[in-house]
């Protein structure tokens, strides 16, 4: 199997740079997900690894081989496209056997290999059908089959699930993960869906405007975001951001929003020392905001504030409360039995141990 290394990789289209100096190391057998909003350069990066786009600057290595000038077919990689890209004039069998035929495998070997992959994906019944006679999910399977039949070093997936309906997507997500465990191969997967990234990836690479903001495992990305963008992009509902002034009073440091003041914990205090009388962004996830009435934690001193409920969204297992302080609005994820009503003023608690503070200019995480 294989590892992939990107060194200072850039991609320019005419005068616009869409991928800016990317450095990334994908380990052997790793499921690496490139995720970001549309236009962030994730697909371009994938296409450069595939060899479908030239690399403007930098180097791409697969194993120890510099592949910048190696044709896609000689890189020993397979790609699954968003549109599946099945050849409409070829049957499922021919679609799967095409690459093997071009590589000059003997007929018997091709038969064996296609059969093996077809069995793995449950495609045996469909081998003689044309793509137009298949459902979306079946096409997706064939596209997968076409990739795995070649036993490549690296699999590239370009938003392979985005054309499926929600239910099928969840199902395929699990299947892809199973497939990865079974094949034990390196996978690079592009998606714009952060849930897909979180659930599938061993490593998540969060990109925006052609730059990698963070590349880490899902837990790290969720609990220790590198910057404000990552904190806002990962998780649903997104992290709440509140602009505050750092103030010092009685040797304690507080964040002053204007309508409320919260005290920072010791860890934050050390880092925020240099930000006194400066503005920062407080980032707190919805599950770390509690209704004081139901809060089971003990120490709430300096962490509570009053807010008005604007909207209540019951989701069954839980509720989203849209709260406002008059200056800022934010979402709290509370238990389903919470009785808060619209327009009611409630006292809420910020779990400051789980909150983050970001620099207002660089947007980098301070703590």
């Amino acid at each position: 199997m294989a590892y992939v290394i990107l060194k200072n990789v850039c991609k320019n289209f005419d005068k616009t740079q869409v991928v800016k100096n990317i450095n990334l190391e994908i380990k052997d057998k790793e499921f690496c997900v490139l995720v970001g909003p549309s236009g962030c350069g994730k697909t371009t990066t994938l296409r450069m690894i595939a060899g479908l786009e030239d690399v403007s600057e930098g180097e791409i290595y697969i194993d120890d081989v510099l592949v910048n000038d190696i044709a896609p077919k000689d890189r020993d990689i397979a790609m699954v496209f968003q549109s599946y890209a099945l050849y409409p004039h070829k049957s499922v069998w021919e679609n799967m056997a095409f690459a093997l035929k071009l590589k000059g495998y003997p007929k018997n070997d091709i038969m064996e290999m296609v059969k093996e992959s077809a069995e793995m994906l449950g495609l045996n019944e469909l081998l003689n059908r044309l793509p137009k006679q298949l459902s979306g999910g079946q096409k997706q399977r064939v596209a997968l089959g076409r990739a795995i039949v070649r036993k490549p070093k690296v699999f590239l997936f370009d938003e392979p699930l985005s054309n499926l309906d929600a239910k099928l997507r969840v199902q395929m997500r699990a299947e892809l993960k199973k497939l990865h465990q079974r094949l034990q191969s390196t996978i690079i997967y592009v998606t714009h869906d952060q849930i897909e990234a979180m659930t599938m990836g061993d490593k998540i690479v969060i990109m925006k405007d052609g730059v990698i903001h963070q590349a880490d495992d899902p837990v790290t990305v969720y609990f220790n975001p590198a910057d404000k963008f990552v904190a806002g992009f990962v998780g649903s509902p997104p992290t709440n951001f509140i602009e505050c002034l750092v103030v010092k009073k009685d040797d304690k440091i507080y964040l002053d929003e204007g309508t409320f003041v919260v005290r920072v914990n010791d860890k934050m205090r050390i880092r925020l020392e240099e930000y006194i009388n400066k503005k920062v962004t407080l980032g707190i996830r919805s599950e770390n905001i509690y209704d004081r009435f139901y809060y089971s934690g003990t120490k709430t001193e300096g962490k509570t504030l009053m807010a008005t409920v604007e909207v209540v969204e019951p989701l069954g297992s839980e509720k989203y409360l849209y709260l406002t302080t008059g200056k800022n609005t934010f979402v709290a994820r509370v238990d389903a039995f919470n009785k808060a009503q619209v327009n009611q003023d409630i006292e809420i608690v910020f779990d400051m141990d789980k909150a983050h503070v970001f620099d207002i200019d660089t947007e980098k995480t301070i703590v």
Partner: protein
Amino acid sequence: MEKITKEESRRIKKRIEILKKSITYIILSLVSIIMILPFLWMISTSLKEAGAVFTYPPKWIPHPVVFKNYLEAWNAVPFGRFFINSIFVAFCVTIGQVTTSSLAAYAFARLEFPGRDKLFFLYLATMMIPGQITMIPIFILLKHLNWIDTYKALILPMAFSAYGTFMLRQFFMTIPKDLEDAAVMDGCSKFGVYWQVILPLSKPALATLATFTFLGNWNNFMWPLIVTDSMKMKTLPVGLTSFQGLYTTDWTLLMAASVIVLMPILIVYIFNQRFFTKGIVMSGLKG
């Protein structure tokens, strides 16, 4: 009450629909009659005696019916040779045009090279130049090559088509780029993509172009007339003029010969009718 009005309005709508359809059919029928009349007159004349062509009032049903006009026409000139020439030339030109046009169209649609679009528009612009203008220079060129009165002269200048390139380019551009990328990943070269993916997916467009080209060449009169001298190189449309003298025209034989010439084309048309309409719809042009 309301029900009745609904019923009534539906009935009125239906009547208007029928009226509209009737008018359309009447107009179309009239036009098709106008179109088919010369054709019927040709068949009628081909079966008449020589003296009965210009009788007044014109007779549509010949009496007596003279079938031997066909035999006579066939024997009067080397028709067999003309047939072979026509089929051979039309076939080669069709193969040539489909090949060159599809290769050029693939380059213009999918390959990236500097000045591609400018070159394409320049190529398209050649469609604006009437054939009569290039006729003489090409003739002189062929004369210097010593190709006059050969198959090469009949085939090669016709084996390229800006129209065909344009039509196929438009079609190729509708083929998803992902398919091409997939083929590249699977190990196809540029030509492999053209051969294995683009061409098989373009069968309707290729058939349309082939049909247009074949028929256009089958009917081509001017060019074969200019570049052929000897009887053995003439094609059917040129051969037909043998029945037209300077002062007299043998109408019955000419018409009989015309019917013979028309048969293959009619067969091609009947089988490939759908490609005609498709081709016109696809390119917004008539071949």
